[in-house]
């Protein structure tokens, strides 16, 4: 017997009215996790917007575009695998996480160097924001260099470090990719002039009760 509904789409699905329990999975078939950063205005720092799950980096970028740029202004996206990010512990608001970072110069070999992107969180509950790029040999070294370069930037409760080579970045020449918002005014509250209709209705009922 099929489930019958008021909803014609549900009837078309031909869903059985009774079903056995879902088989228990030994392992979840869930995709890998990626973190997404967006540029909300031109020439401003990228900021964390949230994660997506995807089978690979390119699909992650497509999902991220759908999830994080379809409703708000966006001028670029960066996507990186969650496991490529290392981070400090969180400290209390108004404390500086830099105080916990004490990496001797000795474990900072001179080469080979690669670029790391540094994101810092100013206040708990807010979003990590891009501070800049540093050159270093590994994660701890990148954090130490970040402390030297950005350590005077207060406040800072948490730092994320990731190799720049692993960050998938939208290209400068693809900018028109993002210019989709202006055509969809019906998604904005200002497109609905409810008050005009209500006032017209009131005038009508008063003059013609």
């Amino acid at each position, binding site marked *: 017997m099929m489930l019958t509904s008021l909803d014609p789409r549900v009837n078309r699905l031909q869903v059985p009215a009774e079903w056995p329990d879902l088989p228990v999975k030994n392992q979840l*078939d*869930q995709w890998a996790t990626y973190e997404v950063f967006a540029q909300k205005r031109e020439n401003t720092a990228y900021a964390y917007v949230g994660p997506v799950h995807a089978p690979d980096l390119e699909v992650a970028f497509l999902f991220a575009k759908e999830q994080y740029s379809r409703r708000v202004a966006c001028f670029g996206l960066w996507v990186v695998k*969650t496991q490529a990010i290392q981070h400090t512990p969180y400290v209390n608001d108004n404390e500086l996480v830099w105080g916990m970072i004490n990496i001797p110069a000795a474990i900072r070999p001179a080469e080979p160097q690669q670029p790391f992107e540094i994101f810092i969180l100013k206040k708990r509950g807010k979003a990590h924001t891009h501070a800049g790029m540093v050159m270093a040999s590994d994660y701890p070294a990148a954090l130490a260099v970040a402390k030297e370069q950005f350590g005077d930037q207060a406040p800072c409760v948490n730092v994320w470090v990731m190799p720049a080579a692993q960050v998938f970045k939208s290209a400068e020449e693809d900018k028109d990719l993002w210019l989709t918002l202006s055509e969809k005014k019906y998604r904005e509250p200002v497109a609905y002039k409810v008050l005009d209709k209500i006032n017209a209705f009131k005038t009508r009922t008063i003059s013609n009760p």
Partner: protein
Amino acid sequence: MYGGGSLFEAVKLDELQHEDPMKLAEFEARIQRGEKIEPDDWMPELYRKQVIRMIEQHAHSEIIGALPEGTWITRAPGFRRKMALLAKVQDEVGHAQLLYSAAETLGKTREQMMLDLISGKSKYSNVFNYPTPTWADSTVISWLIDAGAIVNQMANARGSYGPYCRALERICAEESFHLKYGHDAVVYLATGSHKQRQMIQEALNRWWPPIMTFFGPADKISAHTEILMRWKVKMATNDECRQQFLDMYVPKVWEIGLTLPDPNLRKNEEGVWEYTEPDWEEFKQVINGNGPCNKERLAVRRQAEEKGAWVRRALLKPETTYVKPLA
């Protein structure tokens, strides 16, 4: 959209006795100072459990709530309304994505949440177990259920869990379009022909009883409620939310010449709304799976899960692994 602060599990407070008292004091002091909790912080197991449960229910409500409205996209009167409703339903599904991510930071996988929804273990807002027989019903959801959801979400956005606050900030911004769109659609019918007025009045009559249960039964003042409020998980009592909703929206219903099917509904001299107590027995029945649409809602989700399984497996790469999101 989302409703019902009523579904918190009754918890045994003796669970707290196993927690490190020093760490617990530190945790509570942080919340007291108005600081947010981030995923890596130490937190009592009870907090973790209750926050997962709350965010997960909210996420489920978003995707299940898309069903009674989504069915009207193809039948919405006019191209503009089709586009707007399509965008709204798309927003709701996007909200679910944001919320599942926030819950995942606490250690429960997205897929497990989906499986718990399908098996009936996790709940979602009870109002979505009612049908939308006409276009007017869908406009009542867009306006008044979203209005209720906004009351709830504005309160929750002041809560203590960082990732949930970040998600709600974006969700609340998008909800303001839903509310205006819904209000506009209701006003259009209410100020239209006799037949249109009748249609919206009947839809309102159908939806008012579920709407009155949207925020859940009055909270029992228990140690349990007290601790969730101290931890800023629950930000307002169910009755406070209901009062705020009535105060904001009953006048807006009345001003367009519509009535509400409750002869006892009125604001008394103290400024408190009085009403006929909703049927909490029916509420309980529906939550436990016996509402008009429970079966259909879960069957549709189940089919989506089953039909999508091969795609997920086909694209799954052995060298990539799922981890919980960072924030």
